[in-house]
């Protein structure tokens, strides 16, 4: 089955990014496909490579990058939400790309199920 995921909150502040990541990991392990993870609202903050959590904490941004690389997942950051919050191509972590909101609607059309993780 093809899953689409929407993440509406930034890393660390809310559990949403963790829940979304763990859902994706479990879905992939079960042989499902994750079509795309779309980051919206403060969720765009999942994409900044300037994040530096303490060493004993999980690195949420790198974790997304690795998941995307290992499983060819499209990580899309909403351009309007990103520019509002200072996320640009220059500070994007590997595996993420900035694109329009149309990509979210397209995910809804193409995925068998679209799940939202937010506040």
């Amino acid at each position, binding site marked *: 089955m093809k899953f689409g995921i929407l993440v*509406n909150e930034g890393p660390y502040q809310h559990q949403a990014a963790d829940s979304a990541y763990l859902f994706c990991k479990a879905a992939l392990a079960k042989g499902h496909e994750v079509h795309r993870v779309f980051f919206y*609202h403060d969720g765009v903050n999942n994409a900044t490579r300037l994040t530096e959590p303490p060493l004993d904490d999980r690195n949420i941004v790198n974790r997304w990058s690795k998941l995307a690389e290992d499983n060819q997942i499209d990580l899309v950051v909403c351009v309007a939400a990103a520019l509002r919050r200072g996320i640009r191509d220059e500070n994007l972590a590997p595996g993420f790309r900035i694109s329009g909101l*149309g990509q979210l*609607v397209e995910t809804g*059309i193409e995925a068998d199920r679209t799940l939202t993780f937010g506040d």
Partner: protein
Amino acid sequence: MEGVVKKFMFVNRKAPYGTIYALESLEVVLISAAFDQDVSLAFLDDGVFQLKKGQQTKGIETKNFSPTYRALDGCDIEKLYVEQESLEARGLTEDDLLVDVTVLSRAEMGELMEQQDVVLSF
């Protein structure tokens, strides 16, 4: 995926201005109009405040985006649903809203939600 028409519902449960969710939800709704999908908007709980007439945002130096709800009609987004109990619980009636809506009971709202392919909530 050309020609695929899915039922999309955007569920709004948050008041405007206190957080950005209402505004950014509306931005997705506007974009969805370009994809020729079957789009509905549901307003529940504090989400009904998004449609309140007479919003004046000058004093908080924030853009008043409420007129955009009236423009949805022009983008062929005409299905706006409001839950009756959410209105009543907030001292509002249909006359307080800035756009034409269909008022639904909780059961009707639940039934409508069940029929959707994609439910996006912000």
